[in-house]
């Protein structure tokens, strides 16, 4: 029997979680845009499949800024204190399926040779509830990267709209069962996932063509001219995971922090000598495409892109990754 929950019951569930001290992240409207964020007092959760939040849910697992350890000089000694990896349980609600599907991809990166406890403890302690898509927008291309709106990857449960005020709840894991246990009721109605976007290109063909991409930078020259070299596409991307580790504070007292970084910045590969092996934007664009469609797949067997289109929507110049991929596939 399908399980359902009304919008009101869902909001009550969120409230009870917040009251119990659990952090809950959902999309929230800000001006004309929506952003995934931890709910604060007075925030209205925006559970609407027609909304495409600007950012991805990756920040609740891999935050833009994280303290790794602190240091303090005490006389001739230096006291170093490890930051404790995150342990409190949290809920991410309303993730797009392509957002949730990015999590297993990130798991591989942060648990491959070095085990990143900061990332992993967040993953272990987070329940991810996705929200079925209503319809693709012009940026979506999940079907071109071996996924579809039907994917369950990375999600503990999924909400499928039946009408404006009712959702079918599909539970996939134990965490999902714990969250929704006793909160749903039986019904004969089932929710829907909207239409899938048209297939835009063949990822296998792209991977093959990229084998020679170092020699044919022509693929990237148009993108290089259009691209500003900002970090927007990589920061809104659910699968981009590059970071920088820096010291902050003073010699006497400070901290080592881990901050997001972007391969689209010229500074990313700028050597102390002044040399920059990726000396123009075309090479930086190539890096982003190669990493997602060649380097990562070679290592882990799957693509490092869920076709969510966040990068396309987030780019002021309407670029992002898809136009580049379409150019390569031509």
């Amino acid at each position, binding site marked *: 029997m399908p399980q359902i929950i009304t919008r009101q019951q869902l909001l009550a569930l969120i409230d009870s979680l917040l009251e119990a001290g659990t952090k809950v992240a959902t999309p929230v409207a800000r*001006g004309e845009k929506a952003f995934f964020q931890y709910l604060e007092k007075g925030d209205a959760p925006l559970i609407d499949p027609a909304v495409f939040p600007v950012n991805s849910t990756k920040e609740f697992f891999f935050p*833009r800024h994280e303290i790794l350890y602190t240091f303090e000089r005490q006389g001739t000694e230096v006291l170093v204190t490890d930051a404790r990896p995150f342990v409190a349980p949290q809920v991410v609600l309303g993730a797009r399926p392509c957002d949730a599907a990015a999590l297993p991809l990130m798991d591989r990166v942060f648990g491959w040779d070095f085990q990143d406890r900061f990332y992993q403890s967040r993953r272990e302690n987070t329940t991810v509830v996705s929200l079925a898509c209503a319809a693709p927008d012009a940026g979506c291309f999940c079907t071109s990267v071996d996924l579809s709106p039907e994917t369950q990857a990375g999600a503990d449960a999924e909400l499928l709209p039946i009408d404006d005020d009712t959702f079918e709840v599909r539970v996939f894991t134990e965490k999902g069962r714990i969250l929704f246990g006793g909160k749903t009721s039986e019904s004969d109605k089932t929710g829907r996932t909207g239409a899938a976007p048209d297939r835009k290109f063949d990822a296998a063909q792209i991977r093959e063509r990229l084998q020679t991409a170092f020699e044919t930078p022509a693929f990237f020259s148009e993108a290089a001219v259009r691209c*500003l070299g900002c970090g927007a596409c990589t920061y*809104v991307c659910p699968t981009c995971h590059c970071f920088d580790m820096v010291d902050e504070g003073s010699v006497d007292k400070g901290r080592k*922090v881990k901050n997001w970084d972007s391969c689209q910045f010229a500074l990313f590969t700028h050597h102390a000598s002044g040399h920059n092996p990726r000396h123009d*934007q075309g090479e930086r664009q190539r890096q982003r495409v190669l990493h997602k469609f060649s380097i990562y797949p070679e290592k882990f067997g799957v693509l490092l892109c869920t076709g969510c289109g966040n990068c396309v929507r*987030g780019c002021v110049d309407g670029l992002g990754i898809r136009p580049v991929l379409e150019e390569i596939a031509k």
Partner: protein
Amino acid sequence: MPFEVYTFRSSGKRLFAGKNTPHFHAVYGIIAHKQTIMQDIQTEMRNRAKELLESKQAGLVVGFTLDEYGKPTPAFITDPDDVGRLVWNDDCVRSRHNLVGCLKRDEVRKLGKPAVVVNAAGKRAFNVLIAESQREPGDVVLIDMEPEPRDARFDERYAKLAMLDTMSREERFAFWKKEFTRCFKCYACRQVCPLCYCTQCIVDKNRPQRIDTSATLKGNFAWNITRAFHLAGRCVGCGACSAACPAGIDLDLLNLSLARAGETHFDGYRAGENPDTLPIIGTFSVEDKETFIR
């Protein structure tokens, strides 16, 4: 005029038609004509671009085309047969993209002498670049889509600040805290700004690291306020930075506050409005009352 200007007056029509332009209604009266007029402007713009490229007066034309959402986005045309990609419509008129900002990029500079589609804000940005010795008049061909400087826009823009003016200090601080929390330091605002042309931005200098790279509240305040200060008396109010910000932060509010202060304290100075006026920052005069500099 200190630079080459192409205006579109040749056909005898007013070739700038914004949705809310009172002149437009006065001249043409009925809206039904507007579509055709916009198309004429577009055709004329394409022809001009083609002519510039064919005659090699320009190696590159920077104008607008439409992205997959149908929104105006910069187009870089080097082939005269490609001018059909150039678009001019109502959204381009309203667009806060400042195409002059594209010209600073190495990849764009490589394509040859540029011709660029500009509105009044674009022209003002170009004037500031000349005043600051970043460009020579004649370096760039301006394809001027707004031959009448819309002065009204200049006055109207401060109206936006009323919202901040009515807040107490504490409320303002709370407002900016909420806004800056969303900044993740993608630097899109800097990358689009025609006047952020430093080859190495202060945030990219790490010996020492004066501004935290962390996108924390402290790091974000440091970044956004430093950028606003660096644009004081220079920002032309195009709004490109606000439009580019994926976090939806209205950076205009910061820049406008400083522009208004400059206007109040420096005899109505408006950046780039008059190409012959010296910039208020970066100009030294022995009459300056601050003696520390001598």
